[in-house]
């Protein structure tokens, strides 16, 4: 019964793939209305890290939403959490930074600041983050040369977006924590808090 076998295989494959593709749920905020593009389920990670814990973090100078150009070195003396997110106007990213926006105190209590980085250009970041309320942390554009900073950390994906990655850099500029998350899932906040708590002042 070759036909039956094919059918059974077909059905099983369909169910498996359907489960695989349909399983992500984002609980997306209504703040973004119908403006979020769904990129479907993506390859969880798609780059090779170029840094490791204990390395000096690669410096960068990037334009921020507020109009200034910020460099990593100017934050020496403070712990820095870098949140790379893949792209503006996508489901998980849109529901990540708004959460960080209500926990400024958690960062401040740990002598830390947050830098949000995407490979989008400033006008796109402006329009997108306007839905999030006033963000207390700098949002940086790694648009040109495209993804140069993401690439220096080894988190630039083959399609030009960045990984959903968290780097914790201590007050001396040393990388102390790296988490490259599945691009389809939001990292739990407590993972960042634990990483900050592990830093010896």
């Amino acid at each position, binding site marked *: 019964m070759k036909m039956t076998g094919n059918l059974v295989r077909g059905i099983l494959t369909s169910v498996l793939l359907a489960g695989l*593709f349909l399983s992500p749920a984002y609980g*997306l*905020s*209504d703040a973004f209305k119908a403006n979020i*593009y769904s990129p479907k389920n993506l390859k969880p990670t798609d780059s090779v890290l170029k840094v490791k814990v204990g390395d000096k973090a690669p410096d960068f100078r990037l334009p921020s939403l507020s109009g200034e150009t910020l460099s990593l070195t100017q934050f020496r003396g403070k712990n820095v959490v870098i949140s790379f997110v893949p792209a503006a106007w996508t489901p998980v990213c849109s529901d990540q930074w708004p959460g960080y926006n*209500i*926990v400024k105190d958690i960062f401040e209590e740990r002598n830390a600041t947050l830098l949000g980085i995407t490979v989008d250009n400033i006008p796109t970041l402006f329009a997108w983050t306007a839905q999030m309320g006033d963000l207390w942390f700098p949002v940086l554009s790694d648009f040109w040369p495209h993804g140069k900073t993401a690439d220096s950390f080894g988190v630039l994906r083959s399609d030009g977006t960045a990984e959903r990655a968290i780097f914790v850099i201590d007050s001396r500029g040393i990388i102390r924590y790296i988490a490259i998350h599945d691009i389809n899932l*939001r990292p*739990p*906040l407590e993972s960042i808090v634990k990483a900050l708590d592990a830093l010896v002042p």
Partner: protein
Amino acid sequence: MHLPQEGHIQRFRPYTRIPVMRRFERTSKKLSPQEGSDMRGERRVSQDMPQRGAVRRMLRMVCAMVILCIVVTPCYAGGADQPPAVGKEFPAISLTLPNDAAHRHYLGVTRGEKSITVPDIKADLAIVEVLSMYCPHCQAEAPKMNELYARIESDAALRGRIKILGIAAGNSPYEADVFRKKYRVSFPIFADGDFSIHKALGDVRTPYFIGIRIEKGNTRVFYSKLGAFETVNEFLDMMIRESGLNGKESAK
């Protein structure tokens, strides 16, 4: 796949649909015996068995339709593809109870239960808000929700009869607690880290409000709507009116 409300984002078409459709087109096409032999993985349709071939084609078509339905319909384990409908029962979701004594008292949990369902809650009316600490509108709505809670608790006619529950979609217990502490929320918020409750509620966008009438262990959804409400008084009046709570004695 999710967010099935109006103005929904581009709906995802699984890749698996394409081969299935091709198979459907191939099998539903009338084939000559020569054409039949060209098809990879397909039984050759013999000239002397036209009826069997037709039956097989029909069978394959039905199976293809079944597969198509499985693929296209967002069918999760225990999930729903629509939000709770007005007039229907509220989905039988299990809520893991907080240890917090005040919250247990608020919900009317007197024994050592680990979890409850909505009809177990000691109330005539439950207002469920699906929220997230990552949702800007839920953050903005938080003070109004607190005001709603305070209005109910300060009214002897409503206190104990209307209970508010938050369900933090995709939030870990830590994250749900961050939201609760940040906005000093007095009503219980249940963390739904794996989105299982969120799925059972039809993958709604947040904030989403569901009004549930509880009578003699049965539930009836009377309000199910996406989006923040305008004013606390109007919302509360509407909840009382729509639920038919007004003038009725407590069932408990």
